[in-house]
């Protein structure tokens, strides 16, 4: 007996599993609830549209979906006035003597803000401070790496290296393939 009740019916199941984690990630990055809802809808529709091209050999389905979600969230942040405000904020911070403190507050918020993944938190804690700050600003904050470099007052080359090294350490800590 093949699934003859219609793939749209199957998508309801997908929705019920995906909507919450996708929306939560997008809220984390985009912040604004109304915009987050819009982006979430775009993402879920894209998942539906392109499910035929999902290839489990290339990585897990969760990663496929969350990659789409994160990219769309970041696109939204960079495209909207919220993005412009962030640029401005980054530029302001560049000149502020308290830039490191400001960035650190935001990082602390990002890391400590009631994250449920105990293991992720533990592994993030195992990174050097600058690795952790760079990764959380880039991933949860949606900042580009030149912006992260500005916020943390380090060179572009250093940010690239720290993010890569930090992610590799996280990968080992999490035991991800």
């Amino acid at each position, binding site marked *: 007996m093949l699934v003859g009740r219609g*793939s749209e019916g199957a*998508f309801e*199941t997908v929705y019920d599993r995906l909507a919450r984690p996708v929306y939560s990630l997008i809220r984390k990055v985009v912040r604004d609830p109304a915009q987050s809802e819009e982006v979430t*809808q775009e993402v879920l529709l894209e998942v539906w549209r392109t499910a035929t091209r999902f290839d489990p050999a290339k990585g897990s389905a*969760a990663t496929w979906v969350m990659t789409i979600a994160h990219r769309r969230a970041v696109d939204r942040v960079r495209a909207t006035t919220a993005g412009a405000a962030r640029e401005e904020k980054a530029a302001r911070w560049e000149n502020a003597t308290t830039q490191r403190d400001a960035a650190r507050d935001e990082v602390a918020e990002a890391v400590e803000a*009631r994250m449920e993944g105990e293991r992720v938190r533990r592994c993030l804690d195992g990174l050097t401070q600058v690795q952790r700050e760079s990764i959380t600003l*880039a*991933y949860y904050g949606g900042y580009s790496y030149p912006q992260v470099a500005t916020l943390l007052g380090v060179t572009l080359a250093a940010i690239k290296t720290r*993010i890569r090294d930090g992610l590799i350490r996280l990968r080992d800590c999490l035991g991800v393939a």
Partner: protein
Amino acid sequence: MARDPHSLAGVYALDAISDPAESGRFEKHLSRCQECTREVSGLREVATAMAFGVEEFEPPTSMRDSVLAAVSRTRQVPPSVTAPRRRVAWLITWTPRLVAVAAAVVAIVLGIQLSGTQDRLGRAQAQDHAIAAVLAAPDARVVAGPVAGGGSTTAVVSASRHSLVITSTGLPVLPGGKVYELWLIGPSVIRSAGLVPAAGGPVLASGLAPGDRLGMTVERAGGVSQPTTKPIVLIPLF
């Protein structure tokens, strides 16, 4: 800019390259560098773990209807024909489009269930490979059936791998001390195919033999070696 494309793997995996020309150059490099491609996909798995680590927000209830309505109006893209040996493309040539779509959707459901909980991540990764192998088998087929009492069970079956991956949704919560147990019911023998995890998630069952049917019963906690109650699911697998 310094030309060490490898160093961009991390920022690329986090979508932290905002200059399209720069990410375009890196993607071009990726297409020629298998090692980098592997590294980026590994780092994306890390990002996914971080994605599941954020504070949870309940999406607005109205969103469900609007997404499902949009889905019913939206045509899916055809599977990639440049990769004819891939599972989905292969299924397309062999069965109605619906089956391929269902397989992809099931794969997504399974993947999400596998990776949804951080604490199970390590173990799930190992099982993920075995499950991915079943899903990617050229003879993978999707079967499904309702559960008496509520819910449904879906399985991806590969006869060549003698395995199937079983997932269930909407099962009524059982009283304490009871579990849902899965069975491979053959013409002459019945073998346990494992217990349905209380938290949901897929079950990988091996030892599939010709003529087997998939069954499910309610049993005492811990499971039993032979079913003691009437099956609430019975799905032919061949």
